[in-house]
């Protein structure tokens, strides 16, 4: 039904300059996504990451049962925690977007930013988990309910990001992706439950049995650092991504103003 086929939509900032941007202004650097708060946050993230490496790789002892492979858990636990927090945040922001009294595109962008960061952490956690599995059980993958659910979440949210990229107005993107995010909330417990039931009928070892390690104090402390470090990293990434998305949306609106002017001039009024 589209009436205009020849008009390439000026979607990104690369092919369109806002009408009021003179060359002089472009030279002077304008404030970007960073603020004093995020800079402090960034430094805190870096410091805690350094601590994580220090404690995780050097100071903490090896586990009696698992040996050195326990060090992978300091990555794995932090990333998996963040991944699930990220998808929780996506679901909550989607709900906030759909609820009439709180609806705002900011919620939609937080949901999108959180899902994107979540997908990265999900990939990292699957990688770390597979390596840990290889060292502990001799195989990269076990059909454990949690592992499998995580893999499904990963694919589901890649699909969610694809839905976000479908185009249309910002409102349409928000509504569509929020509904998809909430449907995922329906789906994931079902997947988890069904995989659990599936393994339950002819079960061998699962993660929950083998992770019952006796934790040394330093190991506990390393895990704690891991949670802190990855949570800080997550917050930093989401804040920045949210701001980038906000600017992208603003850019689209700017492009609209510009395109409107052009469109009006067609009329010669």
């Amino acid at each position, binding site marked *: 039904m589209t009436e205009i086929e020849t008009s390439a939509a000026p979607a990104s900032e690369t092919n369109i300059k806002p009408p009021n941007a003179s060359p002089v202004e*472009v030279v002077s650097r304008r404030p*970007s996504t960073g603020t004093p708060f995020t800079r402090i946050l960034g430094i805190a993230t870096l410091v805690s990451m350094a601590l994580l490496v220090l404690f995780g790789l050097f100071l903490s002892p090896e586990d009696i049962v698992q040996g*050195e492979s326990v060090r992978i858990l300091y990555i794995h636990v932090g990333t998996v925690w963040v991944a699930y927090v990220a998808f929780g945040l996506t679901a909550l922001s989607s709900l906030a977007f759909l609820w009439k009294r709180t609806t705002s595109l900011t919620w939609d962008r937080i949901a999108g930013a959180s899902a994107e*960061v979540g997908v990265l952490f999900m990939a*990292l956690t699957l990688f770390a988990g597979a390596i840990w599995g290889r060292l502990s059980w001799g195989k990269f993958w076990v059909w454990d309910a949690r592992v499998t659910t995580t893999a499904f979440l990963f694919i589901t949210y890649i699909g969610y990001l694809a839905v976000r990229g479908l185009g249309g107005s910002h409102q349409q993107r928000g509504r569509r992706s929020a509904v998809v995010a909430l449907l995922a909330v329906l789906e994931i417990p079902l997947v988890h439950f069904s995989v659990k039931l599936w393994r339950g009928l002819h079960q061998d070892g699962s993660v929950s049995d083998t992770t019952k390690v006796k934790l040394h104090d330093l190991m506990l402390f390393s895990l704690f650092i891991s949670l802190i470090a990855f949570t800080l990293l997550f917050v930093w990434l989401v804040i920045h991504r949210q701001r980038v998305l906000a*600017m992208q949306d603003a850019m689209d609106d700017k492009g609209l103003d510009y395109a409107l002017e052009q469109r009006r001039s067609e009329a010669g009024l």
Partner: protein
Amino acid sequence: MRLVAMQDVGFILATYVATFIGSIALAAYYLRRGRRLADQLPPEDKPWA
């Protein structure tokens, strides 16, 4: 150094390295993208600034 003595050190290091590279790559992408957009937008589109 005890790191050398570790068994399966390759696997463990690979996990750490992949995690950090992944995170840094995403962060760098966000910063670059933010910088490019910020240069073209007036302050009123950046309420946080």
